């Protein structure tokens, strides 16, 4: 009996290379005569470029070329927005290099191409630019007010989207309890550890563009559409990619410009950003103002939920900018039943870096809003926050359940996850300690935070994307090839950047084809090797890409069965599949998958009409999203004298359906939770009153270190997804979606007796202390 690979904590095949420095980061790539690109960036948030002169840079030692936006005007096109979900969306022109006006600090205005990066940097200083300042637009509410200066001629409103489900007026009319809160989702900098880099080479006719991207396939199409370079002459490669978290789900100005520079100069060019350049110009995340009203009966049953968002787009709409907050449209109602739900969102232009997907993309924001206000409801009713949730959530026996916002949750068990989490956490004991500390007036108060989240995950059904005005679908592709020697090559369209696809796909294939785990390799991230794919984001790799792999294996096995029947001179129906071989039922005759692969390779004795080679490919397009859920509990100690918040314990019980590799799953959760904690306690992108980013370095933007974070205690419940044959739901974003409200709820819970019902994120010691001072006053 061979061991089932799926479910095993296999150590990753990816690791040895990464651990010994045998890596292929884009910045590692070298070519004979490679040229280095550096960009001059706007120091102004909003200005007209009245004069720009790059001639001083030309002729300096090592400088091959220098260009301003005007030099690209005829060919650079406009950077794409692929998902203007609201029909009224205004997509302003977005030149990769600014020509006449800049709209955020960091926008590229010129570039130098030189023989090394030091000389390129020197030459940037010789470029002269005169800026005619225009007013910065920084505050969303002011931006929408009459008389505000405009970011674009069309005004500062990008779109207004509204959806109403049920009779919202009736739900609020005469409601015994109405909670009304405004929450701030601060702007975040995704901060993947690998800075972006692009290299483009050309033979004069075709182009190979290497980029630290999550989306080589989408990038290839978009480069063609933006620049007019024919799609079939572009190959995109994502070599090793050092983290993304949504920040590399983008079609960037630098990618377009490197392609155009390679074409202009006929040489290989490379650009690698510095971290401070990246903080300015890698798209930011979050940045919403959330006005939320919740109406309930006096027993805590939710009647209605009304959500009104202002979402900061930044200066332009980049790839998914306007769609990100709208992923909240079906998520604020979360795991709860209610009579009515209204969601409205206005996208607002400001003179800041555009926002776009950051781990969770719209769903962490929604989860934060609802999970925070559920705690407020509990406080108002003097009930336990878990009790209020229990009263409202979808019960296990009610699945599949169509929510008020129209999604059908296929499976889940909120009771089981919550029971498990509270037991592991020692919920009652911590509540007792909390009461004791309150009674004693302990300067260090204990707070307990709850988050019972769900997410729409595994993006997503192509039909749904189409109905919601997206530029592409959500299918994924895979090929599986059993080679002549019985080894297996798997091609996946989902390009990893740390998720462990090679290991997980190997586990799936090992079970499906009965081949050893070590006999399988997984290829990806190069449009010449993996010609079809829609890439990696939205917790979609396993739920869609992994299923495509499984489907391709099924097809390979079907092909193998026909061949085996032919070779064994029996009917395909007489064959049974066991441990990598087809056996004639009741006999000893068999053909292993490896023998069949060799027979399919030689082609000497194939059935009529059969094609040589034992391989196949498949695409999978899901009919529904998957809906991971879980219960996260956080205990914090808050020092009321200093405002210091310390996480004392954190328990997460997640239901992500079937698990392919528990080691990888736990790792995803650890990292996801850490990023959500970071939003709650540490991180914020700050612009000053002139529109300058103040947090341009890792010294100013506080990424938590090992010393800032606790251990996370994890467990799982398992309600398999019904929308795919593996029963998997995806786990990439779960931790981040769940943890932010758990932490902030804990901080607020600690301080509620002091009259505090909100602290704006990040809950730094200063913010907590000031809130306490306000409470004292």
């Amino acid at each position, binding site marked *: 009996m061979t061991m089932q690979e799926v479910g095993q904590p296999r150590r990753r095949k990816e690791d040895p290379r990464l651990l010994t420095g045998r890596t292929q980061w884009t910045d590692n790539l070298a070519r004979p005569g490679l040229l280095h690109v550096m960009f001059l960036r706007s120091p102004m948030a909003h200005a007209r470029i009245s004069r720009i002169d790059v001639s001083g840079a030309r002729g300096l030692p090592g400088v091959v070329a220098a260009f301003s936006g005007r030099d690209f005007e005829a060919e650079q096109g406009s950077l794409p927005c692929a998902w203007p979900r609201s029909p009224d969306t205004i997509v302003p022109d977005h030149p990769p290099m600014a020509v006449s006006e800049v709209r955020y600090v960091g926008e590229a205005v010129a570039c130098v191409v030189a023989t090394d990066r030091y000389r390129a940097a020197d030459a940037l200083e010789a470029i002269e630019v005169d800026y005619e300042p225009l007013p910065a637009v920084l505050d969303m509410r002011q931006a929408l007010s009459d008389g505000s200066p405009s970011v674009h001629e069309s005004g500062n409103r990008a779109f207004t989207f509204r959806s109403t489900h049920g009779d919202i007026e009736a739900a609020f009319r005469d409601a015994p309890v109405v909670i009304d809160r405004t929450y701030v989702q601060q702007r975040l900098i995704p901060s993947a550890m690998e800075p972006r880099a692009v290299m483009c080479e050309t033979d004069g006719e075709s182009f190979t563009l290497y980029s630290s991207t999550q989306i080589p396939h989408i990038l290839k199409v978009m480069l063609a559409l933006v620049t007019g370079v024919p799609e079939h002459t572009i190959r995109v490669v994502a070599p090793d990619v050092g983290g993304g978290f949504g920040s590399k789900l983008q079609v960037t100005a630098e990618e377009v410009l490197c392609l155009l520079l390679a074409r202009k100069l006929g040489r290989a060019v490379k650009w690698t950003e510095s971290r401070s350049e990246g903080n300015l110009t890698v798209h930011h995340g979050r940045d919403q103002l959330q006005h939320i009203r919740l109406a309930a009966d006096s027993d805590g049953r939710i009647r209605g939920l009304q959500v009104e968002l202002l979402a900061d787009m930044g200066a332009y709409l980049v790839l998914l900018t306007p769609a990100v907050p709208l992923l909240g449209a079906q998520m604020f109602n979360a795991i709860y039943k209610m009579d009515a739900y209204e969601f409205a969102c206005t996208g607002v232009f400001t003179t800041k870096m555009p926002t776009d997907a950051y781990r969770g993309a719209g769903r962490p924001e929604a989860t934060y809003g609802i999970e925070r206000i559920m705690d407020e409801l509990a406080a108002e009713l003097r009930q336990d926050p878990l009790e209020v949730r229990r009263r409202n959530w979808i019960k296990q026996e009610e699945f599949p359940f169509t929510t008020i916002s129209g999604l059908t949750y296929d499976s889940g068990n909120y009771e089981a996850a919550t029971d498990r989490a509270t037991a592991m956490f020692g919920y009652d004991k911590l509540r007792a300690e909390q009461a004791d500390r309150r009674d004693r007036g302990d300067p260090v108060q204990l707070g307990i935070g709850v988050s019972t989240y769900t997410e729409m995950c595994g993006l997503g059904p192509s039909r749904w994307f189409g109905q919601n005005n997206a530029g592409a679908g959500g299918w994924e592709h895979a090929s599986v090839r059993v080679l002549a020697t019985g080894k297996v090559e798997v091609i996946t369209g989902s390009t990893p950047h*740390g998720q462990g696809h090679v290991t997980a796909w190997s586990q799936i294939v090992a079970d499906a084809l009965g081949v050893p785990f070590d006999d399988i390799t997984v290829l990806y991230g190069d449009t010449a090797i993996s010609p079809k794919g829609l890439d990696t984001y939205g917790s979609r790799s396993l739920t869609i890409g992994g299923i495509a792999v499984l489907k391709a294996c099924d097809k390979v096995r079907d092909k193998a069965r026909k061949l085996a029947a032919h070779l064994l001179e029996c009917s395909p129906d007489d064959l049974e599949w066991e441990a990598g071989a087809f056996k004639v039922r009741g006999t000893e005759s068999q053909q292993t998958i490896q023998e069949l692969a060799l027979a399919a390779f030689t082609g000497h004795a194939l059935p009529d009409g059969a094609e040589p080679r034992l391989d196949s490919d498949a695409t999978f397009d899901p009919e529904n999203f998957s809906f991971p859920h879980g219960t996260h509990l956080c205990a914090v100690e808050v020092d009321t004298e200093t405002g210091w918040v310390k996480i004392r314990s954190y328990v997460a019980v997640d239901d992500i359906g079937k698990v392919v590799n528990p080691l990888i799953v736990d790792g995803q959760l650890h990292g996801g939770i850490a990023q959500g904690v970071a939003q709650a306690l540490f991180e914020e992108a700050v612009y000053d009153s002139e529109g300058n980013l103040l947090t341009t*370095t890792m010294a100013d933007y506080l990424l938590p270190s090992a010393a800032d974070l606790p251990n996370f205690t994890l467990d799982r419940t398992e309600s398999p997804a019904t929308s795919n044959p593996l029963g998997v739901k995806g786990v990439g974003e779960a931790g981040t979606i769940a943890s932010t409200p758990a932490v902030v709820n804990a901080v607020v819970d600690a301080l509620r007796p002091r009259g505090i019902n909100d602290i704006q994120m990040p809950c730094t010691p200063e913010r907590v202390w000031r809130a306490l001072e306000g409470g004292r006053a």
Partner: protein
Amino acid sequence: MPRITVTVDGIKYEEDVEPRLLLVHLLRERLGKTGTPVGCDTSNCGACTIMLDGKSAKSCSVLAVQADGSDIVTIEGLGTNGSMHPMQRAFHEEHALQCGYCTPGMVMAAVDLLRDDPEPSEETIRHGLEGNLCRCTGYCNIVRAVRRGAQEMGQAVSTP
């Protein structure tokens, strides 16, 4: 242009360098030692950590000329005879890396940490790695890996 001599992963190099050239750029762009990556420009992230004369150093914050005459070990030279160093193996066993970008620096910092304290507590590990940032793992498994690495290195030392 100053001429410097450095030994990197056991090989001696003589290079003419501009005084402003950073050590990490010497390693990556002149010597082809691309195993050591660059993650920031303010010496916060620690991705570029190497061993400089036996002590960990952030190679983005050292000029190549300052390294003249020194012995450098990078992640590429940490293992011996083609097998991984116990700390590298521990990172693999404990799934202490995901994208792997911070990993070379994290492993070097962990090895250096054990020079001062061969049996560090969780607290010591967390504070000892404060200068190395990871965005993927939430550090839980890194802490475990360092403990495992410490145990294995301790055993290797105590085994006659």
